[in-house]
């Protein structure tokens, strides 16, 4: 955690390329003239639904109230922890985009809609400012109808 921002990205990219066999660690270390740290494996790989259907209509519309699924999943996600289990309102509907969990941990590319969902800061945090809201971009799989 002492690593700087781009150093962490470098370690992540190196780990991915070594794990996937694109380059060998020995090769990179030889070229670098020293040790090249890589990340530990993810403790538990996420179980992913690999169904490949897409190109559906957006399930939600602006003004809809939704709840973010509370369950945290291992591995990569673009669902911030602070929004989990919280209720918000759909403001913007975005085009289909690759679902990040599948893209990070499998070769399956499945797209779905994402949304700008607005949350009251006073709902997200106990001491939240009543005049502040937070708009989070969330994928459809993160959301349940309310």
């Amino acid at each position, binding site marked *: 955690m002492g690593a*700087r*921002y*781009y*150093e962490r990205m*470098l370690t992540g*990219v*190196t780990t991915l*390329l070594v794990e996937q066999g*694109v*380059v060998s660690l020995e*090769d*990179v*270390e*030889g*070229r*670098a*003239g*020293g*040790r*090249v*740290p890589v990340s530990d494996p993810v403790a538990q790989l996420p179980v992913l639904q690999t169904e490949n259907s897409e190109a559906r209509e957006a399930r939600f519309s602006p003004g809809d109230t939704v709840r973010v699924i509370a369950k945290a999943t291992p591995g990569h996600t*673009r*669902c*911030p922890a*602070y929004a989990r289990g919280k209720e918000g309102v759909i403001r*913007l509907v*975005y*085009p289909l*985009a690759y679902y*990040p969990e599948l893209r990070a941990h499998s070769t399956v590319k499945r797209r779905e809609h*994402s949304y*700008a969902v*607005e949350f009251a*800061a006073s709902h*997200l*945090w106990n001491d*939240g*400012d009543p*005049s*502040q*809201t*937070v*708009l*989070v*971009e*969330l*994928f459809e799989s993160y959301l349940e109808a309310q």
Partner: protein
Amino acid sequence: MSAPHPTPPVATPERRAFALRDALVDRGLVEAGEAEALAHRAAEELSPANGARVVARAWVYPDFRERLLSNATAAAKELGIEGPEGRQMVAVENTATTHNVIVCTQCSCTAWPLLGLPPDWYKAPPYRARVVREARALLAEMGLQLPATTNIRVWDTSGETRYFVLPMRPQGTEHLTEEELAGLVTRDALIGVARI
């Protein structure tokens, strides 16, 4: 008994990055010069001066402002502004009652073509953690005192969309040209941590 082999020291990040690049170039996965070209492009072409041009145009031409608010990606392209991290850009407009501010709580995503690469403070955990939690107090610490009556909307760049703020045109600038107006627009104002 011989001593165990000493562990060699960790190579510097720079050496590790060049080693990885060279390994990928040797395997034909990255073209020689590609990384350098990207770095050059980042320094020369991805700049908040582009965002300033877009904002000034929106202040001067109401029809451009409408197009910017309905499809910022297409509107920026009218001025020849596009590029990496700019496939889906959205303008969020400040008004007399609402102030917008941009963050990426999970990493540092920004609209590169309009804002340039993000500044260090934007990538640092304190900004990312605090702006969603206590925007008003944090903005005040950064020098932006918002009236108590102003609502704050914090946009978390947690997906594909890249936001930028369309600030309010300052009063008393009616006599300025579009170019002069662009000169007033700062990167901080495009992120929403400053006003103009």
